[in-house]
């Protein structure tokens, strides 16, 4: 049942894509590709809901041998636990809604069917990633979603900026993927398998085989696997591709670059949870924390509505990473789901706004648009973010709440949710769970690192509230800044507003009920995570409560631990809860409400009341503003240094190949032909050929004499023959 349901979920979107591909090969188009793809997604969604009931407490992986060598077998298979099911539902749900939304948004595009085919392929890849039970399968899905991301970002590939962006996205994530692959190689070499679960899986083997001496190795492996997540989830320092990926159609941004694919990094990190060590956890947490903070600060100064949301996504993903790194497994995944809904909503909402402007834009100066695309061959400006399409520039918007009420309301709900406005929005709960979890870990371990991380998270939360409301105020409130565009704006069609409404409903905590069920999602044990020795541990301060009491160590582990010092670092594998047990959660909740309020208030002052002038602040803090505006100079660094260096190196190698290696070959050829051969040639001409010629001359001369014998007269011949016969007979008689 489980397996066949999963098969249906995977095969439906794949079939939708395959039909497109096969027809495309025959140069035909299936006009109703949109219905086909959407139907496939809806079936997958239904099956996902059916799977909800199939989750068992200790699931087994369903595998088949995919690739068997002499001694080693790589199996492919499905693993279905509560997290998988939730991810499945999130992916299929958001994907379905995006499909529906796209029917309106992409209407009239010359490559309309292709868009849906790509979406189907993406959905398949993503679902495959989610259900895989082994690293190889995850990696395969991982790369396939990367491909789809590439294809969809470059969907309007006539634009050079889109062509650049898709290449950048693929390459940047590939750098991370290589790290992940190296990590996989390390694990494989150690354990001779890439399966994660079950008796022979990596987790079981890691728990039973590794000793304390292996912790450095395991940390490196963990961080390397996390590299994949850094690339895919756009964490520092590989985050630069995600804002550029906004060149893709907005539904793509919503589906891939907000809700699902970028969250796959978080999902992977969560999957790897059991083998994270203290060091690797800390690395993950710091990467997440720094990303959350840095991306949030960049978002403050953006004017492109989609870029703001992109940086917001990066920031929120950093949040989730922080949560997992800090041990708040459930909180991280909880935030993943809530974020998926409200960020998808935000993107679709912005898409609705862009659509409203875009229609006008098209009607007005279509030709100009084309020239525009032509002119911008060199993309320096684009990298600086100075070039913003007019229909995405918030400075052209304002006062749209009357024109587009549904879009406005739904986006406001999402904004309230992401900002952490208390109690009635899901974002508050998930964010609070993270903050509480981090603070709880800090208090429990008495760890300075975690206090710093908590501080970062709190700052990021405040800034998030600020820039999100900046977006809302600039877009929907105030007076229209561009009257012409404003006049043309209109509410979007039903196919676009209905998904918005559904997503808005999903941003309420009620529908995320599963996360409030203690037993539904349980964090896996982390046998290699030792609390620092100075940790403050008391039996009843198991903050967050349902900590795994943890005799999951192997015997040798326990023995090793005892040898180390004999004191009871018995692994407080705590998890946060999200019910606000204990002091940590209470403190975190209060603080988060406070910073959110502060952010919203400041935003109101700056952008609605205009009591404070953003421009004057920017002037005062010019260096800081420049830093934010230039996105911490990451792109400049990459383009100016890394890419240039690589290309330079490539040219150098090619030159080396052409001049040195080939030069040597040609040189050998030259030496052989022109020097050696010249000498040999001379020798050959004078001596060897001389002898030959002399022989020939002698032969010639002799021949000249002898040929006289040939008279050509038959009778002479006959005479000689007969004379010869007579002579011969005479001779023989004589003998």
């Amino acid at each position, binding site marked *: 049942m489980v397996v066949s349901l999963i098969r249906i979920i995977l095969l439906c979107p794949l079939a939708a894509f395959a039909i497109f591909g096969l027809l495309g*090969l025959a140069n035909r188009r299936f006009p109703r590709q949109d219905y086909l793809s959407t139907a496939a997604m809806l079936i997958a969604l239904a099956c996902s809901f059916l799977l909800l009931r199939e989750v068992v407490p200790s699931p087994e992986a369903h595998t088949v041998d995919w*690739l068997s060598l002499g001694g080693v077998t790589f199996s492919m298979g499905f693993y279905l636990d509560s997290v998988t099911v939730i991810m499945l539902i999130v992916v299929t749900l958001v994907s379905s809604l995006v499909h529906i939304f796209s029917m309106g948004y992409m209407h009239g595009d010359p490559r309309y069917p292709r868009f849906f085919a790509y979406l189907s392929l993406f959905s398949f890849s993503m679902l495959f990633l989610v259900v895989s039970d082994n690293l190889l399968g995850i990696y395969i899905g991982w790369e396939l979603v990367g491909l789809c991301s590439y*294809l969809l970002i*470059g969907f309007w*590939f*006539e634009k*050079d900026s889109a062509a650049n962006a898709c290449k950048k996205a693929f390459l940047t994530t590939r750098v991370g993927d290589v790290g992940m*692959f190296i990590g996989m190689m390390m694990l494989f070499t150690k354990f001779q398998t890439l399966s994660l679960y079950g008796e022979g899986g990596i987790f079981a083997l890691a728990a039973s085989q590794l000793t304390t001496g292996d912790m450095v190795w395991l940390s490196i492996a963990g961080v390397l696997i996390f590299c994949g997540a850094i690339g895919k989830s756009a964490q520092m320092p590989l985050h630069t591709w995600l804002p550029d990926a906004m060149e893709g159609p907005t539904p793509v941004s919503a589906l891939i670059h907000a809700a699902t694919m970028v969250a796959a990094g978080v999902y992977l990190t969560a999957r790897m949870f059991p083998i994270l060590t203290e060091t690797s956890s800390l690395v993950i947490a710091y990467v997440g924390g720094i990303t959350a903070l840095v991306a949030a600060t960049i978002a403050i100064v953006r004017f492109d509505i989609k870029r703001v949301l992109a940086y917001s996504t990066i920031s929120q993903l950093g949040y989730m990473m922080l949560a997992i790194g800090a041990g708040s497994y459930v909180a991280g995944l909880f935030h993943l789901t809530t974020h998926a809904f409200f960020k998808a909503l935000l993107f679709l909402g912005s898409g609705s706004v862009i659509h409203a402007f875009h229609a006008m834009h098209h009607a007005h100066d279509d030709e100009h648009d084309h020239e525009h695309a032509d002119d911008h061959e060199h993309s320096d400006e684009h990298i600086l973010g100075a070039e913003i399409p007019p229909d995405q520039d918030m400075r052209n918007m304002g006062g749209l709440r009357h024109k587009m009420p549904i879009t406005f309301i739904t986006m406001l709900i999402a904004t309230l949710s992401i900002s952490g406005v208390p109690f009635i929005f899901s974002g508050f709960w998930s964010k609070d769970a993270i903050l509480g979890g981090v603070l709880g870990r800090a208090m429990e371990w008495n760890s300075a690192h975690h206090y710093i991380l908590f501080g970062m998270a709190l700052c990021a939360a405040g800034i998030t509230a600020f820039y999100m409301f900046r977006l809302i105020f600039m877009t929907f409130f105030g007076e229209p800044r561009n009257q012409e565009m404003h006049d043309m704006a209109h509410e979007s069609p039903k196919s676009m507003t209905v998904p918005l409404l559904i997503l808005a409903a999903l941003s309420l905590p009620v529908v995320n009920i599963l996360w409030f069920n203690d037993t539904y999602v349980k964090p896996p044990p982390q046998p290699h995570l030792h609390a620092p020795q100075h940790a403050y541990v008391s039996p009843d301060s198991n903050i967050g409560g349902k900590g795994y009491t943890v005799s999951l160590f192997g015997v040798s582990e326990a023995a090793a631990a005892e040898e180390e010092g004999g004191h009871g670092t018995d692994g407080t594998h705590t998890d946060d809860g999200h019910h606000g047990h204990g002091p940590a959660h209470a403190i975190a909740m209060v603080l988060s409400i406070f910073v959110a309020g502060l952010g919203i208030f400041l935003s109101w002052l700056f952008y609605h009341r205009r009591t404070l002038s953003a421009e004057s602040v920017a002037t005062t803090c010019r260096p800081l503003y420049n830093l934010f505006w230039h996105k911490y100079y990451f792109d400049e660094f990459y383009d100016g240094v890394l890419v240039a260096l690589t290309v330079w190196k490539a040219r150098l190698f090619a030159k080396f*190949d052409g001049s040195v290696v080939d030069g040597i070959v040609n040189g050998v050829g030259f030496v052989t032909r022109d020097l050696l051969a010249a000498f040999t040639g001379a020798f050959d001409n004078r001596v060897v050929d001389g002898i030959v010629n002399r022989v020939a001359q002698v032969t010639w001369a002799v021949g000249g004499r002898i040929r006289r014998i040939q008279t050509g007269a038959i009778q002479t011949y006959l005479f000689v023959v007969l004379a010869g016969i007579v002579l011969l007979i005479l001779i023989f008689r004589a003998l």
Partner: protein
Amino acid sequence: MLLSLMIFIPLLGMVVVLLLPRESEELVKRVTLIFTLIPLALAVYLFISYDRSTAGTQFFHGPVPWIDAFNIQYHVGIDGLSVTLLLLTALLGPICVIASWRNIEKGIKAYMALFLLLETGMLGFFAALDLFLFYVFFELTLLPMYFLIGVWGGPRREYAAIKFFLYTLFGSVLMLVAMIAVYLNSNIVNGVAEGARTFDIPTLITLAATQGHALADPDFQVWVFVGFFIGFAVKVPIFPFHTWLPDAHVEAPTAISVILAGILLKMGTYGLVRVNMAMFPQGLAHFTDGIGFWGNSLALLGFINIVYGSFCALAQTDFKKLVAYSSIGHMGFVILGLAARNSEGITGAILQMFNHGVISAMLFLLVGVLYDRAHHREINGFGGLGTRMPIYTGITTLAFMASLGLPGLSGFVGEALSLLGAYDRFKFLTILSTIGIVVGAAYFLWTLQRVFLGTLNPKYEALPEINGREILTLVPLGILTIVLGVWPNFAIDMFRESVTNLIDVLHAI
């Protein structure tokens, strides 16, 4: 017998083609196609009826005495490795004939005849079980190749053809010396000559593993290994013996590039597996035991090939040259995998051989399609073709993605297994080699962008879409790429036992 039939049917085809009148070009092409389709059918039959559960060679023909004075025999047979490569060869045969259907302008009869001769050489090479026969077939491919490049090639065809010829000849001379050394030592046990000398490969493999036999002497093995290695390294090609490859590829006509990349490079790696690894495990061990410079040298060469080839490819502006350099990079994975000497590495290497044959064939065919239309290959001279030729773009994207190692397509499996295996022994070099993966993605994506994305170059507004005949050549390869990517056991089943057997030999020392 079936095997011999398969090998010599193209030769028969050559005779038939030569007897046909010069004027009836269509007939010549059709006859050639038929004579390449028969080996394909036979190869498919062999592939299906091959007994996958054993490692031994099957479908023997011979040994039949050939040159008695030197105990040279006609002896052919296939194991799992050969049968896959035979299938690849037989598959590329008709594809190349179809690809040459329109764009060979002069002397189609001679072209087809030489092509058939080439096919016999290639098929025979992969099936030969006698070292001398092996060498004869190896050289037999050289001659038609020389003419095919030198007569039907591009503007610098003569330079390229001579370079190719001399390079290969240089390598094969060393190989010949090594071969004679093996022959002369093949009957010496404990310093005493016993019995007859032999060229028979299975016998030699057994002898080389016999204690006290002259062939089993480690020093001897090392030197002979080097001789054979250089011979095959030129063919693979391994840095620094690679510079014939870009020239030959750029000048050769499309179909010949396909054969060159698809089969001839595999002859090098096949030789490495069949002779260097199976026959001289101690020689191999000397270069792959991870101790000191020499112990890492083979893996180092693999690494250099990968990184160097990839970087050189990144710098190319000629489409075909880029693909040629990418071949160098991809063959590096084969070398790296072989150097690993474990089941993952060797399986990966063999898969990579097969997959690279399929994928690079696709790439060269695709370049040919574009060249036939635009008459140049300058990457920067195109732009925006994606709007004009969507099907072509789709197939190219598939081929590029397969080549850059996208999971789900065949290129990934070989690369990943090679790296997984190599990491076991050469951690540092393997990690460095992964740079090649990123650079590989970089040059393919950059090319994709420069050729297909962006605004359409107005020069090519009327460029016709890929036609049915060209699609016909690409579709089987595309299907193979996907099938092997999704279900690699399809191919691995063939040679799993052979690899296990080989590893037993390697570990027996």
